[in-house]
């Protein structure tokens, strides 16, 4: 299949994507490709355009130019958020966003992969399988004890976990994870890395993080963005010795 004159086997393919806000170029002819079951770490200075890139992929922001192709056949720049989610792209936001008025359990329930149309939803009954899955997910994100609390009452870090749980519940093909380790202790960070590696066995994952320990932990290919385009790509060691990366990002 070809969209925009491209032929590709990549799960996600961004080509020449630019985004401009009032004259400011947040993304500048960005091209990137993620394979199926690949995990990719994205690093880059604050304001490099990492979150904006995720916005483009999930349909929140429309690029001024370029294409974003998913599974070689869907042009994401033409779809809305819900359709993109339905295609199997899930996202965790930089600042945790959960359904604050719902219980932790219901947050997971709502995220479970099911028929999303109104009428099937109206008539749906919770199955045993669903219940088990919810239990397992809650266990996984260590919120079993808080399952009946309102999500709004959770602490910052707990919300991060809950959001990861919701992401897992969607069983997406591609996970976009924006700074999952922010506000977590070192132990939790390591734990998150384990979780992501596990997920990556069955799905593709794009992780944005500033925590180099975490990124090293992941042990995957790293892309460094700068001023809206790719500055360096490769193993963490290779990227982190790149002069420019040190200069604009890591510091001395």
């Amino acid at each position, binding site marked *: 299949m070809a969209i925009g004159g491209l032929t590709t086997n990549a799960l996600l393919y961004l080509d020449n994507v630019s985004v401009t*806000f009032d004259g*400011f170029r947040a993304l500048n002819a960005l091209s990137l490709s993620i394979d199926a079951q690949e995990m990719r770490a994205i*690093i*880059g*200075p*604050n*304001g*490099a355009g*990492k*979150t904006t890139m995720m916005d483009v992929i999930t349909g929140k922001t429309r690029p001024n130019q370029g294409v974003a192709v998913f599974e070689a056949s869907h042009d994401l720049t033409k779809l809305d958020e819900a359709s993109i989610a339905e295609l199997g792209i899930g996202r965790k936001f*930089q*600042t945790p966003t959960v359904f604050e008025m719902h219980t932790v359990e219901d947050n997971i329930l709502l995220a479970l992969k099911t028929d999303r149309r109104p009428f099937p939803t109206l008539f749906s009954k919770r199955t045993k399988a669903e219940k088990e899955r919810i239990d397992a997910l809650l266990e996984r994100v260590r919120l079993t004890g808080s399952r009946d609390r309102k999500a709004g*009452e*959770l*602490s*910052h*870090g*707990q919300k*991060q*976990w809950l959001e990861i749980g919701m992401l897992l519940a969607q069983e997406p093909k591609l996970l976009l994870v924006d*700074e999952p380790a*922010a*506000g*977590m*202790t*070192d*132990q*939790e960070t390591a*734990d998150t890395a384990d979780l992501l590696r596990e997920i990556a066995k069955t799905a593709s994952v794009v992780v944005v993080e*500033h*925590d*180099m320990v975490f990124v090293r932990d992941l042990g995957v290919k790293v892309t460094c963005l700068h001023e809206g385009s790719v500055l360096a790509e490769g193993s963490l060691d290779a990227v982190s010795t790149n002069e420019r990366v040190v200069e*604009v*990002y*890591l*510091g*001395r």
Partner: protein
Amino acid sequence: MLSVEDVSLYYGSSRALRGVSVTAAAGEVTCVLGRNGVGKSSLLRAITGQRPISGGRITLEGKEIDGLRPYDRAALGVAYVPQGREIFPLLTVKENLETGFAPLKRKDRSIPEDVFDLFPVLKSMLGRRGGDLSGGQQQQLAIGRALVTRPKLLVLDEPTEGIQPSIIKDIGRAIRYLRDKGTMAIVLVEQYFDFAQELADRFIVMERGEVVESGDAKALEGDDVRQRLHF
């Protein structure tokens, strides 16, 4: 400078702080450590007056401040860098910084050059709306904004969250610089252990709303504290 004694705090009927005590002295960094949800942010909310406390005492330079409104505490020199940044989204970067003028005398109403030295990116984005900044840029703005008020007590809630490594180093340098001026007491909540260890003069570790360990910087070197932060 700051002394928190036996403070309790509730959210509705759930208790987030139980008799927490901590002190912070000028020219020192006091680090608050602990896992998610143990009450670190709640402690800072108690200090800044964002949340009422239900027991205990908070004093600043000997003066009881726990009954004061947040703006009165700000006038006494308490500055707050909250978790989640809380930038004024529709104000420009410059205007965000200028909100810090409120507790100042008219003649002091200028943005200290330090701020731009520490965070040059702010200078280049003065006219952009705060809400449009990237997460890390907002974090820098939040710290810069707190500094505009020329605080005596600077309270930072996970200031490195979402910040690129080079700037974390800058922030570390900034905190050290502020500490070394010797006039400011700093309370820092931090999950990033190495960072905390590097800066802390004293620390406390919290668990379930209580202080379970405290001491000076040396104590952080052992594995003890690290252990506490693990599951």
